């Protein structure tokens, strides 16, 4: 059961073009997910460890609205994101006044509560079997893109099944990246960085810091929910095990690798982490499948430890802006 990590590629596409397309899609999804983390951790100094919970909320609300309430897929997306933001605001009002480590624990607990609800409120969420009937609209859209656009450049075949998702994911990732970069370079972003540096100093300068932290968490939730929806299109199944705290932690690995305040670093970090996680499948280490899968995560863990210890500003971060270890 564990070998079939939901965020891993199905083996049917081993070595095929679609394998690499799939790696690219997941890297894009991780980029989106981690952009939210970066806004929180890197730019606001709030240690959100519940990002996958927002992804779960986004995916579930979208999937259930489409499959059980017969909403339009396109309408369900913004509603799902809006719902995640509302949850984030409630969570933030409750927990953002706590000190950093308590906030971190509270947010993991939040994401686990979301997952337990998904698992156990069967009447609403279908429990462990998950939700599947939400993907028709996307499939037909995806098929249209393949036939009408990608065929022209020889990429319309079944092996390029996920190509439209790849394109959409990365366009979205890049747009979000630019948007967040724009936001954090604004006076608003300056206040966030001040809060990260020294919340008391920011308060002494007349900034209502709770409000800014709530906005930061809300945006992270929106971005996370969107990542959850993209993931729902990739799997395509919305089930509780897709939203383990593990995935938030992998987001942190991406973040540390890229550098806490480097926007492009997030994208590069996501690509590297996905490559490590997935490309190792192509190499025959003479190990069992379970061992190979374990080894991937050992590498992720070691990368986190070594980077934090020896290069806390990340591979692409600026020394002066380094926030770890202050």
């Amino acid at each position, binding site marked *: 059961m564990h070998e079939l990590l939901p965020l891993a590629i199905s083996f049917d596409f081993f070595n095929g073009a679609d394998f690499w397309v799939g790696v690219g899609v997941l890297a894009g999804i991780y980029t989106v997910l981690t952009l939210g983390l970066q806004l929180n951790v890197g730019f606001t100094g709030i240690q959100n460890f519940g990002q996958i919970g927002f992804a779960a909320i986004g995916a579930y609300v979208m999937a259930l609205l489409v499959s059980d309430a017969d909403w339009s897929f396109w309408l369900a997306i913004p509603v799902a994101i809006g719902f995640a933001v509302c949850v984030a605001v409630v969570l933030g009002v409750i*927990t953002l006044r706590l000190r*950093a480590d308590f906030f971190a624990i509270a947010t993991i607990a939040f994401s686990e509560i979301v997952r337990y609800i998904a698992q156990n409120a069967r009447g609403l969420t279908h429990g462990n079997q998950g939700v599947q009937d939400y993907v028709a609209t996307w499939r037909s859209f995806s098929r249209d893109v393949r036939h009408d656009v990608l065929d022209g450049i020889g990429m319309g075949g079944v092996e390029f099944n996920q190509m439209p998702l790849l394109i959409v994911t990365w366009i979205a990732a890049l747009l979000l990246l630019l948007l967040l970069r724009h936001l954090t370079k604004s006076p608003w972003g300056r206040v966030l960085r001040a809060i990260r540096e020294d919340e008391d100093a920011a308060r002494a300068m007349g900034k209502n810091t709770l409000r800014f932290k709530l906005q930061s968490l809300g945006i992270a939730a929106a971005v996370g929910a969107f990542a959850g929806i993209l993931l729902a299109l990739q799997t395509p199944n919305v089930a509780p095990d897709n939203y383990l705290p593990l995935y938030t932690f992998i987001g942190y690995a991406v973040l540390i690798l890229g550098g806490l305040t480097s926007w492009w670093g997030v994208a590069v970090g996501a690509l590297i982490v996905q490559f490590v996680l997935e490309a190792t499948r192509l190499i025959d280490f003479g190990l069992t499948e379970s061992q190979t899968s374990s080894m991937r995560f050992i590498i992720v863990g070691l990368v986190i430890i070594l980077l934090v210890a020896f290069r806390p500003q990340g591979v692409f971060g600026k020394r002066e802006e380094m926030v770890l270890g202050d």
Partner: protein
Amino acid sequence: MSEVVATAGAPVADVDEDRRLRDRPLLITAAVLVAVSLALVLGEGLHAWGQASVNGLVSGSYVALGAVGLTLVYGTLKLTNFAHGDMLTFGAYAALLGKVTLGLPFVVAVAFGMLVSAVLGLLFELGMWRPMRRKGAGAFQLMLMSLGLAFVLRYGIQFVAGTENKNYGIDTTAVVTILDLRLARVELVVMIVGVVLILATAIILARTTLGRQMRALSDNSSLAETTGIDTGRIVSVTWLFAAGVAGLAGVLAAMAANSFTPEFGFRLLLSLFAAVILGGIGNAYGALVGGLLIGLVQEWSTLLVDANWKIAIGFSVLIIMLIVRPQGIFGTAGRV
């Protein structure tokens, strides 16, 4: 002059005010427990309540033992250790290794598991945490490293032992009936060993010089140093103790569940944190009591809602506690 003299009585009044405030949470906790118990007895019957309470003590005992190390490490080093849950896993697998691979008798294998866990805890301290503290690493930095360490531990175990469910091959069908309460014999053993160890831990912490030094360090490490405690040595001992007890808690949890995977410790971690926060972070006795409470609350909840929810109930207690009283039942810290 006269104004100054007028303040003379102030500190005494403050103390009384203060003490009332501190006593209240304990009273409230006790009152809530009694009230909930009464309500459950009246609503669900004495037997059902008793059965749930016994079950709660079973899981509460290993949660408490897991939590005590987590809280001591936090108190002493201000380290929020995300790898602590995986130390439970490590202990469980080390005991399995002792029993199956080395062919040791089970009791010896458990002691072996505890010992190996303790040594591993010390090795991490010497090889990783101490050098990082010397470098002046911040709390968040250490927290992230513990996250990385959790990965390495969990998947290291998985690498060696695989993902299949394991068990110790103990007879789980034997059932003991005491006072009309049914309990698997293994569970009874877990409960007895757990409660005995909780008491032993409490006694070690309360009565031995070593335990007192550990608590002193957890209370205020710089004062401990000026009081004449060799803090470097006590930190090492704290790691040995925390990791060893965590290893044992892991074995007990694995016995109670009769089936475990490399992930089970991590899944317990939030319950451990709930116990720690319930008791007041850094407070060793608090963690022991908090652990038992978490076990009880989770099992009691099964009388009212589906058993699948009990874990989520534990997390909800965690969040509610953080909202209502983040310093915990026994907490004295002003800064939260």
